């Protein structure tokens, strides 16, 4: 088994060394003040009328509806699945959310409920949220989630190793997870940016994760403050853009945690639209991880349709 994993790891690393010169690209420095200025300017975009409705529906279609509590039960997950499929039946023409994100033990329940709906099942894994476990246990957890029927794996990186400078450890960890996913399961790599301490490190971790094979890079577990922020997201989007320029590969982005209002979600989409452009305006390449955002978006959509705000009591919570 170990030998097999070892071989897989080599196979994953192999494609990177295709060039005659390994093409070592150190991450460029990031200027925090410049990033904040750019974000504040983009946040001023005024999104009205048709373009607002378009953005709100797009945001809904990019949602990873999430429940990650110790108290989660099959019943709660079933309710969430129903909500995912029937966001607000009073409004016709709504898209469905992109995925439901749960713990591995609840993947099977979600899988069964969502069958045929087109909604993916994402599972956190690798000792989420802290990542404090052995490599073996983490890989086993990914395998377990896959066996249970997960379409997507949201793994966490070992922040301890990254922060003490052992980037190789983190690289190997992601590359191995990628080989376990074996092209069948989409791999999202959570950097837990709230624990990385600087935009420079966030940029380095993004570059590292993409080279190691991440299909998506994701800001946060939602268990650490600050979770997703616009400056962090901008830096990660810029890293994705540079990776695409260099390799032709499109990596996805998932800000998660702290995005609670429709207005914020639209601001994230503006950030995306003006950094990576239209090619990334799809649930295949952009997700928003959130537990309470959906109803605020729905409330705005109802308002755009009827002209009045309804109270939250008119929107089912799960």
């Amino acid at each position: 088994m170990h030998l097999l994993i070892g071989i897989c790891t080599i196979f994953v690393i192999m494609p990177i060394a295709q060039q005659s010169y390994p093409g070592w690209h150190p991450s460029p420095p990031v200027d925090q003040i410049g990033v904040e200025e750019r974000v504040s300017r983009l946040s001023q975009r005024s999104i009205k009328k048709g373009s607002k409705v378009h953005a709100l529906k797009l945001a809904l279609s990019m949602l990873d509806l999430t429940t990650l509590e110790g108290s989660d039960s099959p019943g709660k997950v079933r309710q969430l699945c129903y909500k995912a499929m029937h966001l607000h039946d009073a409004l016709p023409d709504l898209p469905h959310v992109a995925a439901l994100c749960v713990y591995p033990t609840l993947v099977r329940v979600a899988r069964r409920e969502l069958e045929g709906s087109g909604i993916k099942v994402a599972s956190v894994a690798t000792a989420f949220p802290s990542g404090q476990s052995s490599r073996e246990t983490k890989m086993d957890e990914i395998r377990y989630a896959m066996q249970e029927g997960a379409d997507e794996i949201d793994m966490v990186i070992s922040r301890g190793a990254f922060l003490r400078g052992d980037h190789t450890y983190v690289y190997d960890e992601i590359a191995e997870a990628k080989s376990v996913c074996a092209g069948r399961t989409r791999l999202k790599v959570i950097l837990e940016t709230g624990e990385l301490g600087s935009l420079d490190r966030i940029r380095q971790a993004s570059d590292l994760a993409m080279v190691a094979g991440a299909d998506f890079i994701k800001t946060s577990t939602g268990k650490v403050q600050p979770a997703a922020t616009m400056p962090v997201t901008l830096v990660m989007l810029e890293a994705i853009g540079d990776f695409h320029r260099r390799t032709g590969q499109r990596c996805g982005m998932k800000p998660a945690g702290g995005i609670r209002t429709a207005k914020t979600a639209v601001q994230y989409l503006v950030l995306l639209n003006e950094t990576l452009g239209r090619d990334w305006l799809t649930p295949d390449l952009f997700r928003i991880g959130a537990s309470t955002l959906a109803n605020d978006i729905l409330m705005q959509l109802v308002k755009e349709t009827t002209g009045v705000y309804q109270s939250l009591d008119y929107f089912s919570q799960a």
Partner: protein
Amino acid sequence: MTATAPSDPLAWTYAPAPEKVDPGIRERYDLFIGGRFARPSEGLYRKLVNPSTATILCEVAEAGVADVDHAVKAARRAYVKIWSKMPPRERGKYLFRIARLFQERAREMAVAESINGGKPIRESRDIDIPLSVAHFFYYAGWADKLDYAFPGARARALGVCGQIIPWNFPLLMAAWKIAPALATGNTVVLKPAETTPVTVLKLAEIIRDADLPPGVVNIVPGGRPTGQRLVEHPGVDKIAFTGSTAAGKWIMKTLAGTGKKYTLELGGKAANIIFEDAAIDQAVEGIINAIFFNQGHVCCAGSRLLVQEGIAETVIDKLKKRIETLILGDPLDKNTDIGAINSAEQLDKIKKYIQVGGEEGAEMWQPDCPVPEKGYWCRPTLFTNVSQSHRIAQEEIFGPVLTIQTFRTPEEAIDKANNTPYGLSGGVWTDKGAKIFKVTRQMRAGVIWANTFNKFDPSSPFGGYKESGMGREGGWHGLLPYVELETL
């Protein structure tokens, strides 16, 4: 199968988001002399054009010989009888009052500024107006503290100041001129630019509403002849001018031997130097802010990009992508990044330079963005393959046109940056602090930004080397050109 182009399902364009505040622009504006609005002696009114629609906006009185004379006399009377005798603290109160009234009408002023000048509402709302107000507040604070600005000396006002301002930042330039002059105890005759007097005349309404003693500030709109009369008028003690280098040279010649003081803030051709170790994405953003701010109608615009060879391709590629996201159009739309060119005349000048650049062998690039049918517009423009001897790299274009050159060593970058008759501003982008100090020390420019560009603050002095002018405006340094120092 029909060959209709499929609509792009992924594209997301923003719906119009116009600013709707009423700018309160009158159909006709008169001169502001001696505290009241007065008809011009020659009865001439100039029709103003809204540059984003090329339609008539309103008409504004043209100050003739007699009007300039009246204005200077009113300013002299106000100086002798009231303003020079008023305790400094009281002068400060008037300035604070103007600042507050101005702030209260900020949004209205921003809309008027964008309509008259063509600049995006985002800029007039977030930069022009707040900065103008801040200048009044800042110099209001200095009015009763001049003894601390010049320890050991007594600062005396000069008397009547003739002030001539350009069309690129009408209100901001008016604030830069009026606030320090009044704080130091001078009175003012100000001539706004011929295409953009509306907001300055709205400021005159604020000044009147603030009950500033009549004649302390007088506004005489007009063209070049009006400015020349003001410069030549024997009753003026000092000239403060912001505008073209050619006009600045004429002012220097005219004033030689007259004993009048003067400050000149003239053209520029700033180098913006990007080193390989810079934070590239933020530097790209800085390049955008340096050259496309206010359609490039900025004397300190970073119009020459010097980029280190190893990252040139990356930077140019990213720059083009970024430029493609810039929204060009209605200045009053809150999402507009690039507004209208200020006048037909200026648009012709920019177009001429774009043509010259091509003829000189430089390679031109523009994005494929839509341009409104009416009004004066210029797409953001890049030139690569530019030589130091090209006219587009030497002469001030004053439009959204950026020339790009590469360099290998810091020495080469500094040589290229300094190889210009101008010396107003410059920019350096690097992640290494030591390099910032080493390079900026050798650049010959009055204002140098590191890892940012086009940042202004009332407390920092602004002005140029060489043909970019003389004297400084802003900060406590900006008090000096308005006083005579006496030692007790």
